Every structure is written in C-alpha cells, then in structure tokens.
C-alpha cells in the first residue's frame, strides 16, 4: 500500500483482504481454502495465482527439461569416459572441472556466455524467448551447473564397480566391452547417481529462478522473484508449493526408477 493512500481506503482494503484477523485465523483460512482447491489470487493483478502460474510453467519446463537431459547426457558420457581412462589427462581435468564448476555461480556463467556469444561473437540473442536460438544460452547455462557433479559421481561409482570380480568375470566370458561396461558396469553404478539426480532436480529449479532472471526468460521462476519483490504472498506461497511438489515428485520418480533398475529392491 502506498503511504499516500487515503486512510479510509486503507481500512477498506485491509478489511477486504482479511488482514485485520490475527495470523492464526489467516493461516487457518488459507489452509481451508487450499483443501477446497482455492489457492487465492494475486494481490496485485487480482487474478487467480493458479492461472498466473500455469501461463509461465510451460516456459520453465521448456528450459529445465532440455537442460536436465543435456546435463545427464554430458555427465554420463564424461563420467564413463573418465572412469575407463582412469588417471588420464581427461580424468584429471574432470576432477578439477568439478571443483571449479561447482564454485561458479549460475548467473556468472550466464553473463559470461552473454558476453562471449551475444556481445563479442554476435551469434546468439542475449535474452527473451522466440526462435530456437533463444534456447541455446539459457539451457547450456542451466546444464553446466549440474553436469560436472553428475560426471564426477558417475566416475567415482564406475571406478568402484570396475574393480569388482564380476566385471573381470564378464570380460573373461568374452562379452564385448560395450556390454561389459554398459550392462554389467553402468547398471550397477547408476543407483547413487540416480539419488543425486533427484536432489539435483531441486538445484535445477533454483537454478532456473536465477537463469530466467539473467536471460529475461518469461518463466515461473521470474514470477516468484517478482512476488518476493512485491511481497505478493499468495503468489509466492503457491510458487513455493509448486516447486516443492515438483521436487517431491522428482524424488518419487527416482525411487520408482530404483525398483526398475535393481531387481533386489523390487523383491523387497
């Protein structure tokens, strides 16, 4: 409420929004509305928060899903290669890259890519949404944050598995190296990686909030930031609710994938 607002209007607005009741009553009212499927409306645009959110969520998914796929692809390939060429130059640079990549904030990567690819080389647009070119920088920025971590974990788990007796047995049976590495090796090494991927999904959501801001991407993350800036609580609450639900769902998927990949877990 602007300070210059007339007192009468101020009182009227407070009463209309139910801000005169104590916190507990307001909270109960919110909880009750949630159960009815009513998530409230934005203080500012006066539109239902669900509607505002659903407009933006597809844009965020367009960003996070390719980034997740790219990150997993780079992580798996890089980690496998490093484990198979243990102590090679690639292996050692991967370990260094993991430490460095985890330390560099998302928005620094974003700004650096804008400076290089948009400003110096003039190849790609620096922000907004439109053609396929607009996707490249944000997706890469988002993927880079998590792929080094995945690669490092794949490498560690794979190294452990490669030293097992059943791997030597599979090789001595005369199986092709690809079958040995992928079917006997990777399938055993992948479980801890899956757990981290579930956790990384949370990091990806948080990263999307920042990345969307850097690239002026009209996604749900920016909606949440705007809500924080304007103290638009109904919108913010719903945003946190949606993000948390997404993270819980991702972890549930991981648990299901566990069962699919490991027959020992299915048995139980």
């Amino acid at each position, binding site marked *: 409420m602007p300070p210059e607002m007339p007192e009468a209007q101020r009182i009227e607005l407070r009463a209309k929004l139910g801000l005169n009741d104590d916190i507990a009553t307001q909270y109960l009212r919110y909880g009750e509305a949630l159960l009815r499927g009513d998530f409230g409306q934005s203080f500012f645009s006066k539109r239902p928060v669900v509607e505002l959110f659903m407009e933006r969520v597809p844009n965020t998914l367009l960003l996070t899903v390719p980034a997740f796929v790219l990150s997993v692809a780079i992580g798996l390939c890089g980690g496998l290669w490093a484990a198979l060429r243990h102590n090679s130059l690639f292996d050692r640079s991967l*370990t*260094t890259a993991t*430490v*460095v990549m*985890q*330390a*560099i*904030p*998302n*928005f*620094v990567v974003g*700004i*650096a890519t*804008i*400076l290089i690819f948009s*400003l110096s080389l003039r190849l790609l647009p*620096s922000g907004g949404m439109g053609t396929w070119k607009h996707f490249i920088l944000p997706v890469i920025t988002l993927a880079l*944050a*998590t792929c080094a*971590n995945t690669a*490092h*974990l794949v490498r560690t788990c794979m190294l452990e598995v490669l030293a097992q007796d059943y791997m030597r047995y599979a090789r001595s049976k005369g199986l092709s190296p690809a079958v040995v590495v992928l079917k006997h090796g990777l399938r055993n090494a992948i479980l801890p990686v899956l757990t*981290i991927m579930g*956790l*990384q999904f*949370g*990091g990806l*959501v*948080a*990263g999307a*909030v*920042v990345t969307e*801001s*850097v690239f002026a991407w009209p996604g749900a993350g920016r909606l*949440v*930031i705007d*809500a*924080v*800036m304007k*103290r638009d*609580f109904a919108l*913010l609450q719903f945003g*946190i609710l949606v*993000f*948390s639900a997404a*993270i*819980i769902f991702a*972890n549930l998927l991981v648990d299901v994938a566990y069962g699919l990949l490991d027959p020992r877990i299915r048995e139980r």
Partner: protein
Amino acid sequence: MSIDIRVSEPIVGETEDKLVLAPPRRGRPPAARIISLSILFLMILLALAAPAITPHDISEQSLLSRLQPPVFAGGTDDHPLGTDHLGRDVFSRLLFATRTTLFIAFAGVFIGVVAGTLGGLISGTLGGWADQCLSAVVDAQAAVPTTLVALTAVALAGTHPLVLVLIIGFSDYYRYARIVRGQVVALQGRSFIEAARCSGASPWRIAMRHVLPNTFSPVVVLASLSFAEIVVLESSLSFLGVGVQPPNVSLGSLLGEARNYLISTPWLAIFPCVVIVMITVAAATIGDWLRASLDPRSRT
C-alpha cells in the same frame, strides 16, 4: 549447485595409525593451493582495508562522468576501473562489495557451524523423541533447495542486513547437524566413551569433552566447502535484488546493476564476475584439499 559431501568416519583411536601410514594422495599440484590461499588472503586483506584505500565514497555520484571506461581502456587515473551509470567509482564499489560479501559469508558459515553442531550434538546425545523431532526438521529443510528457502525467508522477514546474515547462516546448518549427529551416534559404542561413562562423567560432559572434539575435522571440511556455496547464495540473492540493498553493495548486487548495461559497458559486469569466481574457486579448491587431507576414505 550442491557440492557432493562425503564425510569421513571418525578419525579417532586405532584409525589414526593407519592414517599416518596411508600413502599421500596424488592430488592437484600444490601450486593451485598456494595460489588459492594467496587469493583468499589478498581478498580478505583488501576487504579489511577497503575504507582506507578506496579513492571515492561508494555513493558519491557525478552524472557528468558517468560510464567512464577503466584506465586500460582509455579512462582516467581518477577512476582506475571506470564509473557506473551514476558516475560512481567502480573500484571503490568493488572493494566494498567484496567486503560485504566476505563478511556475510564468514558470518553465515559461523552461524551455520554453531547452530548445526549444537543441533546435531543435542539431537544425538538426547536421542528419543527430541532426536526424531530435530531430525525431521533437518530432513525437511534438506529436501528444499536453499535458494527457495532463502527467498521465502526474505519475503517474510525483509532485507535488513542482520536478517540476511541470519537467513544465509541458517540456510545450510542442517548439513552440520546431520554430520555431527551421525558422529555422535557412531561414537557411542567406542571404548573411550564407555570409559568416560564408567568413570561417572555426565552425558553433557561426554558430549562436550569427548564427542565434540571428534567432530571437528568433518565440520571443518564441510565449512570450507560450503564457504563457496554461501558466497554463491548471497550473490545470487543480491543479484536477484532480494539480498543486500542499496546503498550497501555486494558482488551480486553490483552484477545485478551491471546487467542492464551489458551491451554498452560490459566491464561493469566483468569485474564483479571475476572477483566472485576468484573467491569461490579459491575457496572450493582449499575445501577440496582439506577434504582430501582430512578424509581418510578419499585417500585411496
């Protein structure tokens, strides 16, 4: 963004002999450590000396000399790194931003370590329902990304500097709590704890005198690793405009301001980027080194 933390088994008693005999790990060349240590040392020194060595006040505006380039790009000696969109001296602002960022990071890590260690110690020592309650809180916070928790907290509590430090400090206390609690539980069966108990030491004396010192090395490793993450968290929040508020500056808020002038004056963004990356990479390198030398499991 999270760092994979594998924390050691307790380094006590019989494992200690093995530690000494274990062959030194082939790690990154020591040059990286020396450089990282000197960078951090230099940054801390510059941050401490900021009020004494800055040529201009950080809020001193001069619209006539706005967006001047740095010295090496044809600027004047008066503003070694140029000026921003309001004609404020970039060099001075950069030093004060480093000061703010480092202060928040140190304070945040300190709060996290103290709160987490105490929480873990209480949880592990008391056991029973108190343990379950504390563990539930810790697990709940661990499930949600810290950036989101911090965003919500900022919206509720505002952006007062003290509030910001507390929010950032409490954003990752749960990690320390988990480790310390794990250590406490793991140590319960050890003979020196038994011996202390038999000689009549109270549970709190055991916790403070015998258990706590044995949790130091994993906590130190974790603290050094999360220092970089705290810097990232603070600068992310400030970059988004919900962290450090003007007239104060942090590295993130400098970058946030510079984002609008990327096309015309890219150096405004490059300087804070470079400083952030130098701090975080140096801190992460040292953290990784500490982990390698204190964690017996990563030696093989």
